[in-house]
């Protein structure tokens, strides 16, 4: 008997048994790890239809007959990459939206380099997003498009919709922080304490690796230890290993964040909570949430530790439309897009909500459409209306 009162024979027998199992698992894992593995992510075919500086616009044509006439633009966050929405066949928000007959565009923010350190939130919202929206409007000959934002990308969409409501048909925000005055997420607690000026001055752009360390520290027990223990336990399961590696590829594919954008987001949002109070300014214009007059669907996760429900739920009461809906799913920040359960809820909800409103527009008849087309021609101004552009690259400096 050991000092703890357990039979030593029992422990040793169990140990031998466990070692035997592990050995068997390791032998199998050799075949799995050294054999061919399909770990590609973002495999849904797309075309790059627009490029400007480091950003690219991906276009995914609808898989079947278009059921939502207004195209949808997805704006991802600046942290990590948009490939998360297309992790693997059968677990892809992109594919599900295409299967719902949605004509889909998605911004790829690329990898900022040191030359991008001076780009502000204004440059992203009133610059890149506005140019992309104009491009899609011209390409489809429509006055407005549907906009969907992910995390901080959702905050960008919110800002954009408040500044350019005439170009947005419907707004969908997913896990989007708008109220930063909460102590409910560790990120919010920590962000309030950081000296952002010193950080940006020291680094230029904020390194993705530093952000990743920060995210790992949100739950070290699960993200640094338990996750990999779980991996070792299923290391002989090819399908599990493939999915695990896909996720690892996405998680640690972290572009740097442009310094001035980070500075402004931390100061205006995390420190002063200006967005939800309609006090934030971009390019000298106030971002008044009352100008968000289009329908708003606000989706967030009940167990989101990065953007807790408290940071999301206030939005619908602050916008200038009564056509709003909040949807709180029983999941976390990433689970909302990748968990099998949420996959069944998220995209059908979005597609249904858009179809409902697309139909409403249709029902209003061609009178509205004609008026809208006329408005588009006047608003765009930059190019002749309805000119279909296959691919346009922004003119290079000095060209």
């Amino acid at each position, binding site marked *: 008997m050991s000092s*703890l*009162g*357990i039979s030593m024979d029992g422990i040793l027998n*169990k140990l031998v048994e466990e070692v035997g199992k592990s050995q068997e698992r390791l032998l199998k894992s050799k075949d799995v790890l050294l054999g061919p593995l399909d770990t590609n992510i973002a495999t849904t075919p797309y075309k790059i239809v627009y490029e400007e500086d480091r950003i690219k616009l991906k276009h995914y044509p609808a898989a079947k007959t278009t059921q939502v006439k207004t195209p949808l633009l997805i704006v991802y966050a600046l942290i990590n990459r948009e490939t998360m929405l297309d992790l693997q066949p059968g677990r892809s928000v992109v594919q599900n939206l295409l299967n719902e007959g949605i004509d889909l565009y998605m911004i790829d923010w690329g990898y900022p380099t*040191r030359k991008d350190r001076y780009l502000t939130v204004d440059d992203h919202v009133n610059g890149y997003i506005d140019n992309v929206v104009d491009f899609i409007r011209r390409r489809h000959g429509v006055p407005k498009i549907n906009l969907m934002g992910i995390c901080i990308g959702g905050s960008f969409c919110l800002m954009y919709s408040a500044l350019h409501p005439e170009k947005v048909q419907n707004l969908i925000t997913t896990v989007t922080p708008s109220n930063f005055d909460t102590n409910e997420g560790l990120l919010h*607690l*920590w962000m309030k304490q950081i000296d952002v000026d010193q950080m940006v001055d020291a680094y230029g752009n904020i390194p993705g690796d530093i952000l990743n360390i920060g995210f790992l520290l949100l*739950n070290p027990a699960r993200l640094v*230890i338990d996750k990999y223990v779980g991996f070792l336990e299923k290391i002989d399961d090819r399908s599990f290993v493939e999915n695990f590696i896909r996720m690892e590829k996405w998680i640690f594919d972290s572009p740097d964040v442009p310094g001035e954008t980070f500075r402004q987001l931390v100061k205006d949002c995390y420190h002063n909570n200006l967005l939800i109070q309609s006090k934030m300014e971009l390019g000298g214009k106030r971002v008044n949430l009352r100008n968000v007059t289009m329908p708003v669907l606000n989706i967030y996760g009940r167990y989101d530790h990065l953007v807790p429900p408290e940071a999301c739920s206030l939005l619908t009461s602050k916008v200038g439309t009564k056509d709003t809906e909040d949807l709180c799913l029983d999941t976390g920040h990433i689970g909302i897009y990748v968990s099998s359960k949420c996959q069944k809820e998220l995209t059908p909800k979005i597609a249904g909500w858009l179809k409902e409103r697309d139909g409403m527009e249709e029902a209003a008849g061609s009178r509205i459409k004609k008026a809208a087309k006329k408005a588009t021609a006047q608003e765009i*101004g930059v190019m002749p209306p309805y000119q279909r552009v296959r691919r346009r690259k922004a003119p290079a400096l000095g060209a």
Partner: protein
Amino acid sequence: MKTATESWLTIAKAWTGPFTTAERSSTPDGESEKQKQESRQAGFQDWQKVFATMHTMAGMDPFLGRVAPFPEMTFKMVQNGWEGCFNLYKHWSKATKSSKESKTAGDLEGAGRKFLEMWLGLYEKEIRPILNAPQLGLTRSYQERMNRFLDKFHGYQAAIAEFMQLLNAPIERSLRDMESMMEKAAGQGKLSGDDFRDYYNFWIKSLESDYMALLQSPEYIGTLSRTLTAVQDFNVVRDEMLVDLLQALPIPTNRDMDELYKELYQLKKMVKEVSAKMQHLESYA
């Protein structure tokens, strides 16, 4: 002093004597070797004259009187530093001894923290003043940057050590919790060696909850903030050092490039605005 000078010159002569002889014998060009030897001897003689003059100068005594405290000062500095190190070692041995005797991880955590605090105290008192001492001469600014680099590097290492110590605390605490859980279960005869996974699950849950408590605590947030500051401070001085090095090479530094990028950014913005305005005007034409 004269005696000392003479004895040094004697040693120097004795040292160069065999060398020059050997060199001469192995070199065919005897004439040029002779010239070299003469030149060396002339050099020695010059030094001898300098020392002899110093010995006879009346003003040397007050000079030597002022120089005399320097060894004493150095001795005191070394003594202080040595005492600090000795105290540190004494504390470390005490902590190690008590950790062997103690069964609680809390004692070990405390000992580690105390040791770190003592080292930081010693650094602040004895080492930082030396690094912050004013520098003189042509290389003043380089030396200052080097000292600042060393100081910030220490700050960075200390902050990381403190941060890691804090992060390590929940691991020690959760292991302690698991140990007491096992002891309790053993006391009740409920402990089994059937499934190690149960113990692991208990430990990971306990670790997670300990981390959650720590990560929200003001202590952690303060330490995180100090660590980030120290890392960024170090980053800045490291870059300054690298800029010094790069300046000697035909490579642009980050500082040069940042200026250029800023201009480029402003120009691009201006060009985009002007181009949009022009296209707008063209659409009316």
